[in-house]
């Protein structure tokens, strides 16, 4: 018995171990071999639709050559797909197929590194303002410690809160050529940061109606969000300012001067829609998935998103309602105590060059806050330059509103009321 079962048994054991080991080794080797060549060294000129590298020289003012080779590092936290990325066509060599990858660094980041010698650690770490605040900012800053980031991008209301708490550095514009010179005038008068001393707008966006024109026809009115025709196929945004703002506009109020009473009335309308099961879900960014799958045909939407979704569903469209829409801005800010403040400022200056801004704009498709970007973009991609969603015409600009800046007590009150209505 001993002889007979020792050899097949131990033989089997070692065979099994060998197989297990080689399977694991095989997977490991596979992963190692498949790593994209050189990580981020995908050639910047491999891009298909993004600008060729001569663009910076068309800019009105000289790009960052003036800051010289500053060197150093920059930790930058941004939202997803918010900077121009390179399209790596993948092994099949063709763009637009499943093996494509949008890789970092972006062409403009490469140009920035070449011009200034600063190495950028770019992370798409921001998914949600409050979540980023809760996990990355509030902890260290409340204890006077620096965060892990030198430059972050936060939406208006969060920027206002951070400024209120004194957790943002003032941008030192003494050596800068492009900022705030090239900043569109409209941004210089925002109540929470007059003169743009602490925030540098990165992109703006509009909130309006996203819809599947094949299923709904052309929509243009905020009443569509309360239309029983779309019961169960309607999404609202979870961002209080966007949703209540749109409701307020529909009732004839101005969100930039909204009063408590008007807020309550607007909120009541939303509550009606939810209670009568008109609204399917209330979502943040993932309303896009619902639109793409067809589960939802009308949604409160952000302008740039729909453009990016058109490849999935060409019939998707966006419209700023005739009653009006919301305007919001995502701002670059330097958190207090950031170790690489100078590098962050160099970054801001570089990206306010119209040529660079145009390259970013071409990819991101939101509203650009940089003067002269439209003209620069005409040279690269005239379709985008004339897209009213990226450079809104005057009549649209006239009816989009920024939500009123709130103090802490009011913000808390409004958020509480909003959360009660959405079941949270």
């Amino acid at each position, binding site marked *: 018995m001993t002889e007979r079962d020792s050899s097949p048994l131990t033989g089997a054991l070692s065979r099994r171990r060998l197989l297990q080991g080689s399977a694991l080794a095989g997977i490991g080797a596979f992963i190692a071999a498949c790593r994209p060549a050189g990580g981020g060294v995908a050639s910047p000129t491999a891009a298909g639709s993004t600008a060729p590298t001569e663009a910076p020289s068309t800019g009105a003012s000289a790009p960052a050559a003036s800051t010289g080779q500053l060197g150093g590092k920059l930790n930058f936290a941004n939202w997803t797909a918010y900077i121009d990325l390179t399209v790596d066509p993948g092994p099949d060599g063709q763009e637009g197929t499943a093996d494509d990858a949008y890789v970092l660094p972006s062409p403009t980041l490469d140009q920035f590194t070449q011009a200034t010698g600063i190495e950028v650690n770019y992370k798409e770490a921001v998914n949600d303002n409050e979540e980023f605040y809760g996990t990355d900012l*509030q902890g260290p800053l409340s204890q006077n410690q620096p965060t892990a980031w030198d430059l972050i991008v936060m939406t208006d209301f969060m920027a206002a809160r951070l400024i209120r708490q004194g957790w943002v550095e003032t941008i030192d514009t003494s050596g800068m050529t492009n900022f705030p010179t090239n900043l569109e005038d409209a941004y210089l008068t925002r109540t929470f940061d007059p003169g743009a001393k602490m925030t540098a707008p990165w992109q703006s966006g509009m909130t309006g109606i996203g819809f599947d024109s094949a299923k709904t026809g052309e929509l243009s009115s905020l009443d569509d969000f309360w239309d029983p025709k779309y019961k169960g196929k309607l999404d609202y945004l979870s961002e209080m300012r966007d949703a209540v703002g749109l409701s307020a506009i529909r009732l004839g109020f101005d969100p930039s001067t909204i009063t408590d009473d008007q807020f309550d009335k607007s909120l009541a309308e939303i509550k009606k829609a939810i209670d009568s099961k008109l609204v399917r879900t209330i979502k943040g960014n993932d309303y896009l998935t619902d639109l793409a799958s067809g589960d939802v045909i009308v949604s409160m939407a952000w302008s740039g998103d729909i453009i990016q979704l058109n490849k999935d569903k060409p019939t998707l469209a966006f419209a700023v309602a005739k009653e009006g829409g919301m305007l919001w801005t995502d701002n670059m800010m330097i958190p207090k105590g950031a170790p690489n403040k100078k590098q962050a400022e160099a970054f801001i200056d570089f990206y306010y060059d119209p040529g660079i801004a145009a390259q970013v704009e071409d990819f991101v498709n939101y509203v650009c806050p940089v003067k002269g970007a439209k003209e620069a973009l005409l040279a690269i991609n005239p379709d985008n330059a004339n897209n009213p969603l990226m450079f809104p015409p005057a009549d649209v600009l006239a009816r989009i509103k920024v939500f009123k800046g709130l103090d802490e007590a009011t913000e808390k009150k409004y958020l509480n009321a909003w959360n009660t209505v*959405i079941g949270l």
Partner: protein
Amino acid sequence: MGEWAFRHRQWAPYLLLAPGLIWLAIFYAFPAFQMFLASLSVGTIETGFTFTFQVSNYTDSLTRYSDQFIRSLAYGLAATIIAFLIAFPLAYAIAFRAGRYRNLMLFLVIAPFFTSFLLRTLSWKIILSDNGMIVGVLKSLGVVPEDFRLLATPAAVVAGITYNFLPFMTLPLYVALEKIDRRLVEAAEDLYAGPWRPGGTIVGTLVGAGLVGVLTWIFEWSVPAGVVFGAVVGGLIGTLFVSQSFLWVILPLSLPGVFAGSLLTFIPAVGDYVNAELLGTPTAQMIGNVIQSRFLKVNDIPTASALSFTLMAMILFAVFIYARALGTEDLTGGAV
């Protein structure tokens, strides 16, 4: 070495316990205690929090979020019971009938865990999509109306929770069933423990009616129809399959497994929020969503902490009652 160990062996348990317990003390107990202090504080994230023994945090949040609490308990309970009904025959089959495929089947039960649950839930979204492979087909066959949907409903949330925790229910049941001595079952049958008596029918009818009734109430479908349907189906299943040897031999012997499986399912189910977030709708939010919102979106740490501890207290209370009823000696079950 052996002699030294022998002489000092009353230290042995403490030495064995020390590393793990110290780890838990530092990284679980201490932070949890800090959070308990936070739950009795006031303040905001901007002004800082001060400890004032603010019991109103608890009372206020209980009254304000009573809906979500009840809903969470209901969903958790429903998911646990459904998981039990699905898992018990499965565990029984693996324990009694699988033979040499037993380990393979056990592994297949746990295998879905080897992929990200997010990917699995996203797959469910594809499967249950309004025009997808299930609902779309039903619609084109005319079985359901055009505006019917499975996603973004309480039903989807409960189904998601049940699916996610099914392995947690199956494995303990299997372990307990596997330990049962087959000869006891055979002996019972030899002693004329006949397969059918009214007991099975009654149990089946009641359980069926009750369960389906509760489910239809949760899912906001027609409750009377649900109760009748449940009674009929439950009665049939009870009559046909619930034998005396099952009721009086197998079920009692597997109780420790039932206990452990139910706990391992109910506890995370009640506190779950991802399923409600991905598959739910505003009127189907659970207390986990509220806690997440309070922590991450509103940064209202005192309320969020109070809610968390209230939830934990409810869970522990339910566990305690359950433990008393089943008579097991310690909280983690006699034999998982």
